[in-house]
C-alpha cells in the first residue's frame, strides 16, 4: 500500500510538471507509471498469496530465509 502511495506521489509530480510547462508529456508519464503500478500490484499480490499459503502469516520478519 505504501508503494502505491509513493507511485502516486511520483505521478503527481509528473502531472504537475506537465501542467506547469503546458505539455502532454507529464500525463504520458503518469500513464506509464500507472501501467507499471498495475503490473507490479498483480505480481506482488500473487506473491503475497503464496507467502501466506506457505508461512501462514504475513509477518515480513518470518521471511528471513536469507539470514546469515
Amino acid at each position, binding site marked *: 500500500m505504501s508503494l502505491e502511495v509513493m507511485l502516486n506521489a511520483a505521478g503527481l509530480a509528473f502531472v504537475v510538471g506537465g501542467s*506547469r510547462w503546458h505539455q*502532454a508529456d507529464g500525463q504520458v508519464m503518469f500513464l506509464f507509471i500507472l501501467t507499471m503500478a498495475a503490473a507490479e500490484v498483480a505480481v506482488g499480490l500473487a506473491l503475497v*498469496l503464496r507467502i501466506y499459503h506457505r508461512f501462514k502469516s504475513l509477518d515480513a520478519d518470518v521471511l528471513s530465509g536469507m539470514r546469515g
Partner: protein
Amino acid sequence: MEPAFYIAGGVAVLATLLMLTRLNVVHALLYLIVSLLGVGVVFFVLGAPFAAALEAIVYAGAIMVLFLFVVMMLNIGAHAAETEKQWLTRGVWTGPGVLAGILLIEVAYLGRGSYAALGTAAIAPKEVGIALFGPYLIGVELASMLLLAGLVGAYHLGFHEAEKPEIQHDTDTHEGRADTGGDLVLAGTDRSARTP
C-alpha cells in the same frame, strides 16, 4: 479554482496519514482510495482531465479493488488487527518518521524557487493521445509487454498454489532428491515447508 486544489490536497495528505496508522487493513485500503480520489481532483484542478480520469478509473477502480480482493480472500481478520496493534508502537514510527522528514525537507528544498501561477489551460486528452502515438510509441509498446509479463507472472504464481498439496521432504535423504529430480519447477515448490 484554487481553494479546490488546497482542499483536495489536504484531503489526500490526511487520508494517507490515516491510512498509515489504521490497524484494520480494510480501513487502511479505503482511506487509500480516498487519498487517490483526492489526488485525482488535484489533477483535474491542474488541468489534466485525462490523468484525473485515469487515476480514478485505473488506480482507484482497478488496483485498489485488486487489493481488496486479496485482503478479503486471505481473511486475516481480528487476529491481524491484534498483531498490528503490537507492532505499530510509537517507537516503531521514529525511524521511518525521521527518514521521511529528511526526504520532505529535501523535496521542499528542491521545490524552492519562483512559483508559477496555476496553469488554467487544460491539456485535452486529444493532445495526450497524439503524444502517445507519436514520440512515446515505443513506450506504449513496452508498457503493453510489461502488462503481459505481469499477467503471465501473476497467473503462474497463482497457479500452483491451489493445485498440489505440500509434500514433506527431507532434503538430506536420497529419496527426497529422486522424487523431485527431473522437474526443476516442481523441485522448487515441493521443498519441505519450514513451518512458521
